[in-house]
């Protein structure tokens, strides 16, 4: 039995081991090693027909996330090329051959649709955000997609938004290296570039803001705005409707949409004619906070006595009545009524 197994194992090993050798021997040459590529691509003097250099920064590539990989892992059509120097027009590198799930997410995004359906060639593909031969993981602060670098990377195209973001309280937090400070991808997501005007996104945004602004987000769900938003209706204001999105400022800043100076205009954008009294409304009230609203605190206290009191009293009343009536019914039956 053991002998037979060994024979099978050896046979399998021979088959697997021999097959590539046989193919290589027949038609394909050995694919070029990275050093072979760098003979040309390491030389800054070597240029394409249009005069642009072909040089790749070898040390930067070696230090990148893809450093251990072979050039032909990505430039796959060169693995079988026999003639060097190879033709200038190569197949596009397909990142999704390894990063398939991210590729699938990206293909649904506005960026991908702009490129592929509308032919908007300036819309970003993988390399525009991640780089090419110098791709670093997002944990590396030098990476283009590192937390603090995201606004810079997105800002290459979305410069106007970046400048507004730079003024915001969130950008201040980011500059202070607060790891929780939100950047573009926290709300818009990195690859799907989720639309921010869908119900799902608006609901998610409340949770997103609530990750840091916990008590405020929780209080918001107690309000009419919050409840309607939770029901999935886009009709009511959520965080961004009042606070803005990219240029969020604290209420103490006169430029803030929720500063006392601007509040009437902000509320008025939905509630036409909102006056000074109207904006005394607290959009995230806390009935347990006496300092914030004494009226609400007292109302909360009142109902915490009234509701349990009513249900408690009539609960006992009903149970006793039930018990008494059942007993009477049994007694009547006993009398043969």
């Amino acid at each position, binding site marked *: 039995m053991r002998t037979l197994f060994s024979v099978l194992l050896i046979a399998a090993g021979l088959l697997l081991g021999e097959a590539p050798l046989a193919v290589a021997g027949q038609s394909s040459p050995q694919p070029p090693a990275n050093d072979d590529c760098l003979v040309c691509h390491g030389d800054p003097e070597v240029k394409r027909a249009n005069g642009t250099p072909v040089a790749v920064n070898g040390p930067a590539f070696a230090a990148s996330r893809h450093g251990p990989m072979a050039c032909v892992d990505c430039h796959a059509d060169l693995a079988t090329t026999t003639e060097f120097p190879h033709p200038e027009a190569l197949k596009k590198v397909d990142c999704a051959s390894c990063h398939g799930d991210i590729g699938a997410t990206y293909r649904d995004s506005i960026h991908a649709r702009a490129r592929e359906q509308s032919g908007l060639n300036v819309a970003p593909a993988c390399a525009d955000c991640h780089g090419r031969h110098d791709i670093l993981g997002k944990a590396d602060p030098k990476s283009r997609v590192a937390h603090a670098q995201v606004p810079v990377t997105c800002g290459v195209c979305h410069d106007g938004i970046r400048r507004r973001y730079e003024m915001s309280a969130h950008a201040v937090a980011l500059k202070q290296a607060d790891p929780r400070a939100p950047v573009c991808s926290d709300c818009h997501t990195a690859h799907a570039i989720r639309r921010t005007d869908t119900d799902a996104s608006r609901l998610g945004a409340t949770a997103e803001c609530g990750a840091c602004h916990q008590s405020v987000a929780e209080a918001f769900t107690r309000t009419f705005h919050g409840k309607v938003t939770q029901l999935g*209706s886009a009709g009511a204001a959520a965080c961004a409707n009042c606070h803005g999105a990219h240029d969020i400022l604290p209420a103490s800043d006169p430029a803030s949409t929720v500063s006392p100076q601007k509040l009437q205009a902000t509320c008025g954008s939905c509630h036409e004619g909102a006056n000074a009294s109207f904006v*005394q409304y607290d959009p995230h009230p806390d009935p347990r906070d006496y300092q914030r609203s004494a009226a609400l605190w007292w109302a*909360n206290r009142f*109902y915490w006595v009234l509701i349990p009191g009513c249900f408690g009293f009539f*609960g006992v009343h009903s149970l006793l009545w039930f018990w008494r009536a059942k*007993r009477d019914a049994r007694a009547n039956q006993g009398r043969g009524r």
Partner: protein
Amino acid sequence: MTDAVPGPPPAAPPPPDLGAAHPPVVHVRRFDRPTRRLHLVVMVTFLGLSATGLPLLFSDAAWSRVLTALFGGFRGAGLVHRFFGATLLIAVAWHVANVLWRAFVRGERGLFWGPTSMVPQPRDAVQLVQQFAWFLGAGPRPRFEHFAYWEKFDYWAVLWGTLLMGAAGLILWFPQPASRVLPGWMFNLALFVHGAEATLAIGFIFVVHFFNGHLRPGKFPMDTVIFTGSVSDHELREERAGEYARLVETGALAELTVPPPTAAVSRRGYAIGTAGLTIGVALVGLMLYAVLR
């Protein structure tokens, strides 16, 4: 608030007896037509308001979206809610005006005090204690009058709740006009009170009122008197010994004696009652599920 008729006492009030062979099926009028209609309007609007308001109160519960969708989404539910709210407010306003008219224009007596009045009186406190004594087997059943204390509690709770929730609802319905006379934090208070009062009202009506009026042994599964308007002579004697004795004594019983409800009226009462009880129990079930989950 029905009609105590203080007529001259006839000489001998004979207990109504309609034939010796069959047990006498004699009914006594308990609710007049306007009262029954008022209850029907309050009942239908209350159910509608609960069904369209609960999803907002428990907006994080999974069933809220389903219930909202039944009314054509949040906007549809809001419209239905406002329609029922306005209808209920009009009905209550009509009722209050009607009571005042009866008392002060028509000069009707006994609305604000006496055996047929809804106003709580010392007798009610005594009977509350007596009722507990009866529950515990320490005394006879109190001799209730036209309205027992728990019925008065229902009445005043609904009246108070409607006025309070109506005021809060109007503030939230018309925030800009409201803000011209009220400070903005009243919106916070109005929303809180509307929700808390709703919790109380829904829990109270669909549990306590349902039990006291319909589901308790002896009434189960329902009491249709509020839909048919009359109660059997036997039941009146058992449940409201005080009222029965007074009616016999004053001779008013004969005037209030009516034929038993026809089969059609009775059926209609059961149909309306069944629908109301079913919807109410379902709604309070959803509420309890959301609270206890």
